């Protein structure tokens, strides 16, 4: 049996109902699996939500979790993918003191080389946005850390799969 753990992305297509997040997350917590990132949003289909959940576990656990998720009444379909099977991104926001931008030449270089964007400039702070891999947002965090980083936040992973999902066809069949 393969007991090696790795990061899996679990995508869950669901109805958009109150309390479903609780039901989905309890399937992980019941098995003592920590959710590393969770994003929920509208999917490509109207009134259908999509959860993207990242967690580290054994392959066998991931398969069973998908089975348990699909068993939930309001879950339409769940999938598990490895990192290689998905295109994924995270978004990060950095709120930095305005003095840094004006005083420090380096910070402008950091923004330029990291392909980050300045999304807003206020009287005493500015906000940088960076979308990319965990490694890239992490690097930018490390780079900006010395320059009066006032706030930092990183989103959960969002991902799409390389293979088609066929949810619309599935919904038509119901």
């Amino acid at each position, binding site marked *: 049996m393969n007991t090696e753990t790795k990061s899996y992305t679990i995508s869950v297509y669901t109805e958009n*109902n109150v309390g479903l997040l609780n039901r989905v997350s*309890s399937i992980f917590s019941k098995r003592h699996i920590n959710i590393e990132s969770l994003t929920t949003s509208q999917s490509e289909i109207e009134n259908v939500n999509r959860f993207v959940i990242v967690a580290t576990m054994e392959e066998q656990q991931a398969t069973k979790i998908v089975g348990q998720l699909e068993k939930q009444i*309001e879950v339409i379909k769940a999938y598990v993918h490895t990192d290689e099977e998905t295109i994924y991104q995270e978004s990060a926001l950095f709120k930095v003191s305005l003095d840094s931008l004006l005083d420090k030449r380096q910070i402008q270089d950091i923004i330029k080389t990291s392909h980050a964007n300045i999304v807003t400039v206020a009287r005493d702070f500015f906000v940088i946005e960076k979308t990319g891999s965990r490694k890239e947002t992490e690097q930018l965090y490390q780079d900006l850390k010395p320059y009066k980083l006032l706030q930092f936040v990183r989103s959960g992973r969002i991902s799409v799969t390389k293979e088609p999902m066929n949810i619309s066809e599935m919904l038509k069949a119901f």
Partner: protein
Amino acid sequence: MEIKTKASTKKNQSKKQQPISGAEAVVKCLLVEGVDLIYGYPGGAIMPIYDELYKYQDQLQHVLVRHEQGATHAAQGYARVTGKVGVAMATSGPGATNLVTGIADAQIDSTPLVCITGQVGKHLLGSDAFQETDIVGISTPVTKWNYQITEAAEIPEVLAKAFYIAKSGRPGPVLIDITKNAQFDTFDFEYQKCTSVRSYKAVPDVDKSQLLAAASLINAAKKPLIVFGQGVILGEAESEFKALIEKTGIPAAWTILGLSALESNHPLNVGMVGMHGNYGPNKLTNECDVLIAIGMRFDDRVTGNLESYAKQAKVIHFDIDPSEIDKNVKTDVAVLGNSKETLAKMLPLVNQNSHESWMQEFKEYHAIEFEKVIKDELFPTKKGITMGEVLKEINQVTKGKAVVVSDVGQHQMMACRYAEFNQTKSSITSGGLGTMGFALPAAIGAKMGAPEREVIAIIGDGGYQMTIQELGTIFQTKAAVKIVVLNNEFLGMVRQWQQLFFDKRYASTEMVNPDFVTIAKGYHIEAQKVTKRENLSGAIEKMIASKSSYFLEVFVEKENNVFPMISTGASVSDIRLS
């Protein structure tokens, strides 16, 4: 308003009505769903519905239990004996939380329940109002589905969906929480039965290729073994199942919840698998060449150590729930679908066969088990009464026709090992959750679901005291339940483990009990106590002959153990006889 339940409905069943309150709508929904009996307990947040129950009492009987846990267990007993959906009702807060044990029990044992709870008004949600609790949050992990209704107009569609989900596919409990404003508000009532939910496939499609693959394994098998569970009963597939085993000649062993799907004296019935199951089917699980699991879920109490469970065998798994496939035991062929359909489709694909020398191995193991275990249990030579002989005496009077409702512990294992059945839906017990206190209220539900049948609750002195207050329900409703308490003045199963695995340190397992006969008599239930063997059969005859409820306390040997036994972590083939 939009109701986000996405249930599609049958238009032809709609009935247009004058505006009515949400509370009245709830009662009307129950009536349309064919409910004639509900178990519950009133309280502040559900009073509008109780007020309607009062008005509809000639059509819908409400049984007042003495604790909400009793309501869920009674509804379970009713559901298990009838195959219908059991309904339990409670108020918000403590009323709702008291339902939870029964809901969890129903979830793990796949029992169809609809539980309706009152909730504080919508405007009070989240304010820590009096008797407010987040029952939807609390019950989420132990329900098949749950939903909070906050608008009266949601009631018909949500309740229709609740009944559909509870009963269809692999059954389970559904909880519907209804805020008080939704009970009071009026709306135009229209009810349409739910027949599908787009995100929920109740029964998977049967895959012909899997049937063929299963048939070819079965036809080639030299030592096949069937292990069947409650899926046969829930699918009402008893006759299809019997036809299949009789054609193929395959020995069939049952899990605790499969008990009574096949009559006890059927020549191919080789007994129970699992921790306290029979010697032969456990031993031979590790010798069979094809293991055919039907409507069972390879619980750890069935499999023992998975690393050494049927490793030599090809495994075929029939189940309605795709998530059970490969969950615990790796399957070679999975046949998904309703057991009634899959077993019927299997029948023409399998060859007529018999496995006499293989069956002989079961008989030989049975002879060993009889000599080492069963003989002393059923025909004891020592002074003290054994639990097994109580069951044997009951069998002699009931001739296998009774419904036996057992609680949890040693007496449960004895009841399942030794009670005889010749009719399905006759053994009702808490299998997966192991809920002490289950039997007394479940027996009330079973008796009300099958009033023409003898219903006997077999309970230990520990579990009895967990829901003993339901004697009040028995007294008030005159439910003619026969209650047998096998009293060993111990929490016997825990004591057995302490003896075997904790060097006889009997931590908190000795019970100093009250006079149970006096308590029963306090509820005006006829009662008798037996301490000597010579009085046992007469007492049981008298109990069964009684037309009303009856309490029989039997003092059994204090420190007897249940054998055979598979110790925790051991393999099924390491089952011990002493």
